[in-house]
Every structure is written in structure tokens, then in C-alpha cells.
């Protein structure tokens, strides 16, 4: 994969993510973790090779089908990508509205999600009124509210306190138990130690190795 006419940022990637699996994506900064997540979230096409998602070769699907595939993916962006003019409620409701959910379901799901994630008092707040950590929680809530089949999270715990980080990974693990495949990019070895799942290791745009899950340490 390359951006525009620049150098290839990902090469020789051979990766299969099974439904309901959980993987950490680790590696130094600039290794290509975010680029791989962009490829998997269908925000960037592969310049060569094939990406097959939910059994469909994404290069061969039409625009409507691409939209349908994207609706099955939840993404937590590193820079959150929240809409500043919308309230916390409307930001989280966005994937459900796009999916055509009825307003009652949206209201129930979104309120529940915001309360669960600890933003119940900030339903009407807009992102600029929230702290960095709260914005990150909001971005996570938006990604998981539609219970996606694939969840891609780019450093979702980097701005929150350890207790909240713990809670978030617990949420991801719960989704994983319900059948969502999770790919979580992180630098935190502590996280990997506490929640042992297989690790995909990247360096210089290449997938170096997939490590088996570390023995689980004490989980709170």
C-alpha cells in the first residue's frame, strides 16, 4: 500500500483475521500500524495485492456494497475524528443513523452506551467541551455502538487513565466474546500482559511475526 505516488508504506502483508478473534497490533512508531488499520477499515485501497473482507474482494465491490461492508466495521481513530458541531449523543448515534436504525433504538442504545462508558453526564456536550480522555471514550463509544463484526482501534487507551483503559479493554474483550473480531493497535506492553491475546508485530511496513498470547497476568 502507498499514499499517492509515495513510497510503499506496507508490503508483503499476509494476514488472516478470523471472525471473533482478538489481536494486538504492536510495533514502533512509523512501523505501519495505522496504515494497516486504514487498509482494513477500507479507507485506503491496496496498491497491489488483495484485501478480502467478510468474504468479499473489496477491490471488486460497487460503492453501495463498499458502504455496507464499512457499516460492519467499527473504527477508533487515533485522532478520534469526532464532529465538533454535534453533541456527544449525536456523535455516537452517527453509525446507527447511517445504518437506518429507528430513532427509539438509537436513543436507547446511545444513552446506554454513553452511561456505561462514563459519559452519561455529558450527553449534550460537544467534543471541544470534553477532555482528551473523554473524547477518546466518545470515539470508542461511536465505534462499538453498532456492535460491529470487526473493530479496529488505533491506540484507544493512550489518553485515558489506567482504570478507564482497563474498562475499555474489558469492553473490547466482551465484544470479542460476542463474536466481534478485534484488532487493537497499542504500544502498551502492560495491556498485553494483563489481557493476553495474540500479538501482530510490525516493523518498517512489514508484518514481522505473530506472537502467541502471553500468559495472562492478574486481571482486575
Amino acid at each position, binding site marked *: 500500500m502507498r499514499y499517492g505516488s509515495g513510497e510503499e508504506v506496507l508490503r508483503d502483508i499476509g494476514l488472516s483475521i478470523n471472525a471473533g478473534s482478538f489481536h494486538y497490533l504492536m510495533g514502533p512508531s512509523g512501523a505501519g500500524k495505522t496504515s494497516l488499520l486504514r487498509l482494513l477499515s477500507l479507507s485506503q485501497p491496496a496498491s497491489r495485492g488483495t484485501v478480502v473482507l467478510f468474504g468479499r474482494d473489496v477491490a471488486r465491490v460497487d460503492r*453501495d456494497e463498499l*458502504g455496507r461492508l464499512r457499516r460492519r466495521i467499527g*473504527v477508533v481513530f487515533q485522532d478520534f475524528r469526532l*464532529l465538533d458541531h454535534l453533541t456527544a449523543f*449525536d456523535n455516537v*448515534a452517527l453509525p446507527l443513523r*447511517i445504518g437506518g436504525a429507528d430513532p427509539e433504538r438509537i*436513543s436507547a442504545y446511545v444513552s446506554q452506551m454513553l452511561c456505561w462508558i462514563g459519559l452519561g453526564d455529558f450527553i449534550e456536550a460537544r467534543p471541544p467541551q470534553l477532555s482528551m480522555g473523554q473524547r477518546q471514550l466518545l470515539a470508542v463509544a461511536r465505534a462499538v455502538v453498532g456492535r460491529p463484526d470487526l473493530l479496529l482501534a488505533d491506540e484507544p487507551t493512550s489518553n485515558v487513565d489506567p482504570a478507564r483503559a482497563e474498562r475499555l479493554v474489558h469492553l473490547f474483550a466482551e465484544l470479542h466474546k460476542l463474536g466481534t473480531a478485534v484488532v487493537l493497535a497499542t504500544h502498551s506492553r502492560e495491556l498485553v500482559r494483563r489481557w493476553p491475546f495474540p500479538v501482530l508485530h510490525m516493523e518498517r511496513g512489514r508484518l514481522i511475526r505473530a506472537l502467541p498470547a502471553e500468559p495472562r497476568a492478574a486481571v482486575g
Partner: protein
Amino acid sequence: MASEALDLPLDDTPASRFLAWFIGGLTYLAVLACAVAVLAQGTVERLADTPRIVTVALPPVDDAAAGEAEVRAVRALLEGLPGVAYTSLVSKEELDRLVEPWLGRAGEDRPGEMPLPRLVDVRLLPGPEPDLAALAEKVRTVAPQALLEDTSPSHGTLETLARRLRWMGGGAGLVVLVLTLVVVVVVTRMSLDLHDETVDLLRLLGAPDRYVARQFELHAMASALKGGSIGFTAALATLVALLYLPPLLGHPLFAVEPRPLDWILLAIVPVLAALMITVAARLTATIGLARLR
């Protein structure tokens, strides 16, 4: 909890924010232009309903009896034609009064009897424009020297002016509507470019093009309804002031007033504009989105 805000912050750019005011101003002009057309149409219809008089001039003759016979023949011919209400012979006194400004008073400034033509006024029924050349041809079959003249000159000029104003008003209204659509297309394209990151996010969340285009459509519709209401209300106030205030002061500006149907036609202008603006915004956004990968 859910707000009425659009997913795209389309009111954040100056062009989008002032779209309603642009539309309001242009609706104001469009309604006034259409009002000119409506008033001009009323004038055309009113003039068409006004009886028209043409005059047949027969040259003077020495033989009074032959002259009278000629007049009788001409009148009989004319009164038998369709579209002619009646004819009347202009009296000698009336004729003297007509020529007085040029020839002086009869018997005082004009010694002796000067031969004057005999004039027959022909009153035509209201209706379509008469073919005066054909009428003159027919008259000349019984009076070869006869001349036919349309004696209501202002009638023709007014009618021509009203017809031109009707087309100009309608044309100006159309131009303003087209201009409004051009503004909407430009603003929509600008907004699409300015909000490309948000559009990209919506698409990443799985929004199909029709969902994103609907955002532009809703914004344009809201602007059109708001601007259209303001523009129409202002135009209505202007029209009422121009139509009904001067008569109260004794100086009416217009000879005709819009009929109830005309008011309805004028009210359709902002509705039609809103519909066209909404469709234009949606089409522009859809085409713009189709160009994106």
C-alpha cells in the same frame, strides 16, 4: 436528545450561512419581476377588452347626393362585417372642431365653405387585433378613395409596451431563478470541497452517497424555505405599498390590479424556487460525490 443538526456542519462556512439571505434577495427580485409580468398581462387583457375605434375618411365630393349614397354604402358594408359593433358619421360641427386648430374657426377665420372629408367612426367589438389592411380593402370596394385610420393611437403603443413588459418581467423572473440555481450549485460545490474530511468520515462509517447528498439537500431546502419566506414577504409588502398606497394619496401608479389568481401565481414563485433549489443541491452533491473515490 437527538438534535436537529445535520451531520455536516454546513452552516459553518460564510457561503452556506448566507445562502438563505442570497435566496431571500433573489426571491424578492423574482417575485417583483413576475408581478411586473402579471400586471402587464392584466393591462394587455384590459386593452383587449376596450372597444376600438377606427375612422374611415371619404374625400369631399361636389355632388352631395352622391356623397351621401357613398357614406350609406360604406356604413352598410361595415355594419355587415363581423367584429363591427356600429358606425357613426362624424357631424359637421364635430369636424369643424377637429380642424379648428389648423384652419381656424369656421365662418370667421375660414371664409367660404372649404371642402372637408366625410368621416365615419367604426366601433369595433373587443377581441383580437383587427386586420385594418383587410378592412380598408373591403371599404375600397364601395369607396375607392377611402382612407382608414386607427384613431386610438395610444391604444396600440400601450398594448405594445404592456406586451413587452410582460415578456421582460417573465424573462427577468426566469433569469433570477436561474441565477439562484447557479448560486446554489456553486455554494454546494464549495461546501463539498470545504467539508471533504467530514464527508470522508461519513463514508468511512458506511454512509452511502444518497445519505451524504441528503445533508446538502436538507440544508438547501431549509435555506430556500427561510430565504423564500423572507423574500416573498418583502416582495409582497413592496407590491401592496406600490399598488394601494398611491391611490390613497390620489396618484395611482397602475391602471390594473392583480387578480386573486395572480396572487396565487406569485405565491408559487418561492415554492417553485425552493423545489428547484432542493433538487439542484441534491444533484450537485450527488455528482460531486460520484467523482470522489
